[in-house]
């Protein structure tokens, strides 16, 4: 009971500290807002907003193919995606890219139609130039994909026409005078056949684990930032423990009718309670502010408890190892950032080598993010058993080691 009182007192004191609140709650929420902007959440879309990409077209070709490509950029199909404009010469278009006004310049060379139709030999100068803006790498790749798709159609038409003419001539079905007209007709037919659908069709079905549930990107971003700053909070708890030893308040508690075990238990419970409160507030705030779907509430609650326990274990271990409150702050901050990098709070680690993923398991971040992603996909508490057990196991080991070290340290002797 006394331990509980000490824990609640510590919780109250920390939540009155405005500087601590800034880092415990303010910073992760601000960073989540930034990530929400990337995820498209703040603009109401389901992903990064790639719309109305400004692109400049320079058509130096006098033939039909160049005109078709230029027209394709203004087609209804690409209306939302691209915002095309035209320029008279390549230098002006490149200047727009250099000034970061457009994502790319598409320069169709003179004689492109002749090169494609075989009216002249195709050379290096007959290539469509995509002068891409390196500051808009993803956007310019989208423009490149649009041009590639058009070129594929053009090539299909060219090859279809050529194959048909060769085969029909060889079979004696047409005479050389008819070749050009037949080639053109077959080329047109091949393009319309392509547009009406491929002979091999892909039937796509969306499926997640049962029950069906869409994954929300914010279900990764929001817990990532919350767990990152959870490590700050537990280090702060550890720092306060040593600060109380240094200022002698712990020593004074010993003279009160409270056992040393209850004092230490209360202090450690306080760290766990603060961590639990921080994670709960952040998860709730993300759900309310950004509409993040975290999934099964019971699973979320248990995962928060497990995460708070494991993170608290690390915070207490730092306090047990460090000699001064300042050292706890430094090591705690380093631990927070290192775990953030290793555990996937900054960069998703699912594509990392196997050994890296193994190393990441020493961080509560990796387990926690994995758990939140699983919940986001629709998993429930029973399926989360491994993750929760991993976190509580980590907490138990760290707690035993830390308490042993703290007892050796004579924490109560100020």
């Amino acid at each position, binding site marked *: 009971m006394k331990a509980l009182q000490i824990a609640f007192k510590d919780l109250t004191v920390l939540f009155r500290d405005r*500087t*601590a609140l800034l880092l415990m709650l*303010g*910073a992760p929420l*601000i*960073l989540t807002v*930034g990530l929400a*902007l*990337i995820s498209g959440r703040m603009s109401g879309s389901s992903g990064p907003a790639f719309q109305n990409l400004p692109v400049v077209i320079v058509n130096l070709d006098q033939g039909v193919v160049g005109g078709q490509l230029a027209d394709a950029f203004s087609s209804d199909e690409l209306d939302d995606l691209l915002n095309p404009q035209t320029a008279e010469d390549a230098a002006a278009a490149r200047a727009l*890219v250099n000034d970061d006004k457009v994502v790319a310049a598409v320069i169709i060379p003179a004689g492109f139609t002749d*090169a494609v139709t075989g009216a002249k030999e195709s050379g290096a100068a*007959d290539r*469509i*130039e*995509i*002068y*891409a*803006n*390196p*500051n808009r790498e*993803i956007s310019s790749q989208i423009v*490149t994909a649009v*041009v590639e798709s058009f*070129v*594929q159609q053009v*090539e299909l038409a060219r*090859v*279809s026409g050529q*194959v*048909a003419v060769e*085969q*029909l001539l060889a079979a004696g*079905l*047409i005479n050389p005078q008819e070749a050009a007209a*037949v080639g053109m*007709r077959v080329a047109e*037919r*091949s393009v319309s*056949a392509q547009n009406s659908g*491929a*002979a*091999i069709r*892909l*039937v796509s*079905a*969306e*499926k997640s*684990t049962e029950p069906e549930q869409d*994954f929300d*990107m914010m279900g990764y971003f929001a817990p990532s930032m919350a767990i990152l700053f959870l490590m700050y909070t537990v280090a702060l708890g550890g720092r306060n423990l040593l600060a109380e030893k240094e200022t002698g308040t712990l020593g004074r508690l010993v003279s009160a009718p409270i056992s040393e075990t209850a004092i230490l238990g209360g202090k450690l419970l306080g760290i766990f309670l603060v961590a639990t409160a921080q994670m709960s507030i952040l998860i709730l705030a993300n759900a309310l502010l950004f509409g993040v779907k975290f999934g099964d509430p019971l699973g979320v609650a248990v995962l928060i408890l497990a995460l708070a326990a494991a993170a608290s274990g690390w915070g207490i271990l730092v306090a047990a190892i460090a000699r001064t409150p*300042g050292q706890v*702050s*430094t090591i705690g901050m*380093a631990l927070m950032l290192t775990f953030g*990098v*290793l555990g996937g709070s900054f*960069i998703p*680690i699912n*594509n990392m080598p196997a050994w890296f993923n193994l190393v990441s398991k020493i961080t509560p971040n990796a387990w926690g993010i994995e758990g939140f992603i699983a919940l986001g*996909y629709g998993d429930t508490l029973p399926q989360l058993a491994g993750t929760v057990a991993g976190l509580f196991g980590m907490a138990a080991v760290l707690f035993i080691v830390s308490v042993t070290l703290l007892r050796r340290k004579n924490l109560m002797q100020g």
Partner: protein
Amino acid sequence: MNKILAIAFKDNFVRFSSPGEWLFFLVLPVIFSVVIGLATGAQTDSRIALLVVDQDGGELARDLIDVLQDSKTVAVREYLLSEAEEKFRERQAPAMLVIPAGLAEAQAGGEEVELQFTEAAGNVDAVAARQAVQAALGSLGRALQAAGVSLTAAAEIRPFADQAARDAFFQDGKDKAAALFADQPERILVTGPAQKAEEDFWRPNTQASAGTIVTWVFIPLLAISEFFALERQLGTLRRMLSAPVSKAVYLLGTITGQLGTALLQMLILAGFGTLLLGVSWWHDLAATLTIFLAFGLASVAFGTMLGTFVKTQGQASGLSLALGMSMALLGGCWYPLELFPEFVQKAVLVLPTTWAMMGMNDIVLRGQGLAAVLPEAGALLGFAVVFFTVGVLRFRYE
């Protein structure tokens, strides 16, 4: 001058007497670089895993898998149906493709063939994998399509004598088309304002290297505010009043020390960027040094200004980290700015981190030189003037 250098030396001596400082100065940024290198480097297959079940086993199915294996987007993992389903359930891959038995026969008979593609709901990687499969089908189907159109044209002129003649004509057309597609000339050339070799141009590492430098140099420089807060708390600033040191000399000394260290840190991290991530920082040394210096000045000035607003070391420490990380994220250090909505891209021009990233990207992404980075360097120096002015006006010893 001696006084300025003495203060600069003293500050750095105090700063680096703590082993923890080395963590922030060098160890963590290098870990960060290594992780980014692992995530984006060539040694890792960062393609999206695609589970493929080949129930057909024929030549056409093999051709499709070969095309997919050459994809830059997906990495093919072939399994039996039950194994693939199990791995999909365990989320070891976001998508699964099943090629049904009888693919080649159905295709030869002119029937439409359906391949089953199962993707994790709402998963961006799964969408990318689907597009890669569709592109592969498009590429593979082109030869078949060209042969099919030729076959139709021939049949319209004179029907085939029998199925064998039809099949032979189709096969001949397919082979001819495949040969022509294989020899098709390059129709697209992607260029850009980079002066470097094209293979160095589109590397995600370049953004990561610049982002690492801005993030890890900016946060410690904001922490200069901790110096002021600590010295004010300890009373050492007040004691300066009795020393023959003016406010300007004191500030210059502190700033010089931190700026020098930050420049050294940036050069070391750029070196690691070159070694670990293959990023070229050195094709125009003057440009790199100019942008580093301008960014260092703007950051240290911001830290100085911040130091005049905080009361305690704890406040300074918390604010430095919170502001530093937020400004790094919004400045485009972690994710490219183009992912942000347009109004945000404009709004973040009020942050020095945005200008620093723009300047550094000019160098490493665009391969540009001194002239190109002067506007960004000018903006950063403008920030420095404003922040210093506010900082000096608000600076108090007590």
